[in-house]
């Protein structure tokens, strides 16, 4: 049974992007408890403790979800919708981290209750700077929502 608490759930199908993201997070010592999943279906299993992650404790929700939109199987927007429309998970901060600057995505994401929307810069320096600020904000400065009472 995996009971280790997860700080960040990174939903990213591109291994390069995942690696660069992890490196950027690591660079600022923010990547101690990062769980990387490669598609939307797995992301949902993890969040709702189903399938391969059925044994995960629902008490330990991730403190932050970094969500790519373009994902195999279940798309990022669908994952977002499911998380934000479920009472158990809607309080989890979700930041869309995507290459897309296309407006429909931004608008859709906000409608579904995304907490932030970030377009990944092409330049690595900017990318690193961007991710570090993000990590600090959500994991350090931001007061997390209270845990659901049972």
């Amino acid at each position: 049974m995996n009971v280790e608490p997860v700080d960040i759930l990174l939903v990213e199908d591109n291994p390069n992007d995942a690696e660069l993201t992890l490196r950027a997070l690591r660079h600022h010592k923010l990547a101690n408890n990062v769980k990387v999943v490669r598609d939307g279906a797995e992301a949902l299993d993890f969040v709702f403790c189903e399938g391969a992650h059925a044994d995960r404790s629902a008490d330990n929700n991730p403190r932050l979800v970094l969500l790519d939109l373009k994902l195999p199987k279940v798309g990022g927007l669908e994952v977002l919708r499911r998380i934000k429309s479920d009472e158990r998970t809607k309080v989890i901060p979700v930041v869309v981290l995507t290459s897309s600057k296309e407006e429909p995505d931004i608008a859709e994401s906000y409608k579904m209750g995304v907490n932030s929307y970030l377009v990944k810069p092409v330049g690595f320096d900017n990318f690193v700077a961007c991710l570090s600020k993000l990590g600090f904000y959500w994991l350090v400065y931001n007061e997390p929502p209270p845990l659901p009472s049972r």
Partner: protein
Amino acid sequence: MAASTLQLEQSRYVLISEFAVSLAAATGLDALRRDVIPKLRYIIDINRCTLALCNRESSSYQLLTLLDRRPQRSWMREENAPLDDGIHGEVILSGEPRTFNNRLSGTANLTGAPELSSEEASLHSIMCLPLRVGGHVIGSVLFGNSQDAAYAQLDVHIASTIATHLSLAVDRWHAMEKLSTAKEEVQRLNAGLEQRISDRTADLRKEIDEHRRAEAALRESKERYRSLYTETPVMLHSSDQNGRIVSVSDYWLRTLGYERGEVIGQFPTGFLTDASRKHAEENCFPVFMGTGVIVEEPLQFRKKNGELVDVLLSAIAERDVNNEIVRSLAVSVDVTRRRQAEAAVQRYTSRLEALQEIDRAILAARSPQAIAQAALGRIRALLTFDRASVAVFDFDRKVGRIIALHLENQSGPSLGSNVPLETFWKIDTLRQGGVDMVEDALQLPDDSYGQSLRTEGLRSWINVPLRVQDELIGSLDLGSAGAGTFSSEDIDVIREVADSLAIAIQQANLHHQVQRQAAELEQRVAERTAELEAFSYSVSHDLRAPLRAIDGFSRILLEDHGDKLDVECNRLLNTVCSEAQNMGQLIDDLLAFSRLTRQEITLNDVSMSHVVQAVADQLGSGDPQRDIQLSVGALPSAWGDRAMIQQVYVNLLSNAIKFTRDKTPAVIEVGHRREHGQDVYYVKDNGVGFDMQHAEKLFGVFERLHTVDQFEGTGVGLAIVQSIVQRHGGRIWAEGVTGEGAAMYFTLRPGDSDQ
């Protein structure tokens, strides 16, 4: 001697008696002078003879010369003399004869003779004798001779006898004269009387004539009245107190086709239609009995042959002393033609309305079904029929589809059904524009066509082609349970409706087709747009990720292993990083440009001054080292999309700042001018400028006039500006001189020459 003298005497008496006879025959002095006196010469030897006629009232006498044979003497002198003058006067007054011989020689018995007139002065011998009638001297006669002693005693005696005859003659003449005067008076009186008689006669005749004329006129008038009544071309009938017809005009008979014998004694209402008779009995008679007058009552007669005649009937009653109607006269004006004309006008009007309705349907361009149904509804107002339908033909499937139906009896093909073409229509006839009409289906041969009609319970039938430009598209079909229902006029109407209907249906079909095509086009545009968006999404998503990887992993390589690589390796890796970033910028710009072309444009009144101020503030904070002199002139507001126009100024001012990098100070002017009635906005700088021969290339995507080494940029900025300006309907152009500067001009709405 004695014997010869006697003989002479005897012959003188004979002459005297002849003289007396001729004197008695003489009617007056003229006859006396002409016929009698000349005979005296043979009785008495005379040169001169005068006659005096006494007028006692005026104491004068009238002297008349009867004969004067003396040379150069006028013997016809007449004069008046007083009674106391001359020998005549002496003889008349005395009543005694006077005789003179040798008066000039002084014979004794002539002494004391009265003075003779100058006429008688030359006479030597004179015998003057009185003329007596009943004891009165009425005058005297004188015989004279120029010789002395011309008259003997016998001559005096003879003269006396002659004087006696003359007296009687003169008296007779006087009497005759008086008689003649009296006669004239009588005649005059008679004449007056006769005039009065003739006048009166004329008056009487005139009166008689007039009377006769009046009589004739009366007779003629009666004749005329009678012939007027019978022959005048108007329907007249007269009725007696019982209301039975006593006389009718010929025209009445002719119009209704009856003989006089069939009409006299009948009631007029017997010749009316049932409806008119009812109307006459219930409405007209009560009025007529009361007022004695009916004016222009519209009624309908039925001819002997059954045809109907519309009339306007007027009648007037004749009453007796008790005010009872004894006789009535009715005039009927045949208005059948007028009614027919009115009906024709009515039909014509309805026809026009029906056609207009269809025309309105054309304009509304609704569905063919709705148009056809509306047309059938309108035809109902014009024609009687039991079944009407509109079919459109599908020659590929060989069927006609019933798109509109009006049905009195539930039989025949239903609405929306497909009917085999050959069974129901004579396609060849219709295709040539002909009308297929069946007057009586019972007389059709027993083929499928005839059967199909009969099973529908229709006896007469008409199929009118719907054709558009000689192409048959369908048929307008009307049927009736009666035979021979459709007249040639009906056919005209149906044809007109069919023509309009055909156009309307065609119009609606075209409209439908255009709409479908428009919908298809819009669908395709939507699909294309979606594809483009998907493409953009892919570009933004999928191209950026590898670039980020290239740059990211190059960085990692430099960071983690840079100390193990030589300088050249470091430079090459840095180049990879910067090019990856350049490509990322290119992709971003390209996406921005692509997004712009898809973006909805929102028009508003845009304050250009505010826009420029905002852009200047945003860009001005860029490089504090630069000495930039930006001047902004007065800018009129424009009608456009604020965000887009702001983008225009961002790009133009960015360019101006970029290309003046080597100038100190950099001078940038933002302004406006009116040109050909248009607002032209411009941005000028004193930068590197450009060669006008490359002006065309400025606005192309990725077109650059400078190398990246000189000025950074992707070549998309001006392409975006041009796209925005063009989407506003405006125009952009550039002017430049190499090394001295450039000016960009744009308008935001179509100019006169651009429209």
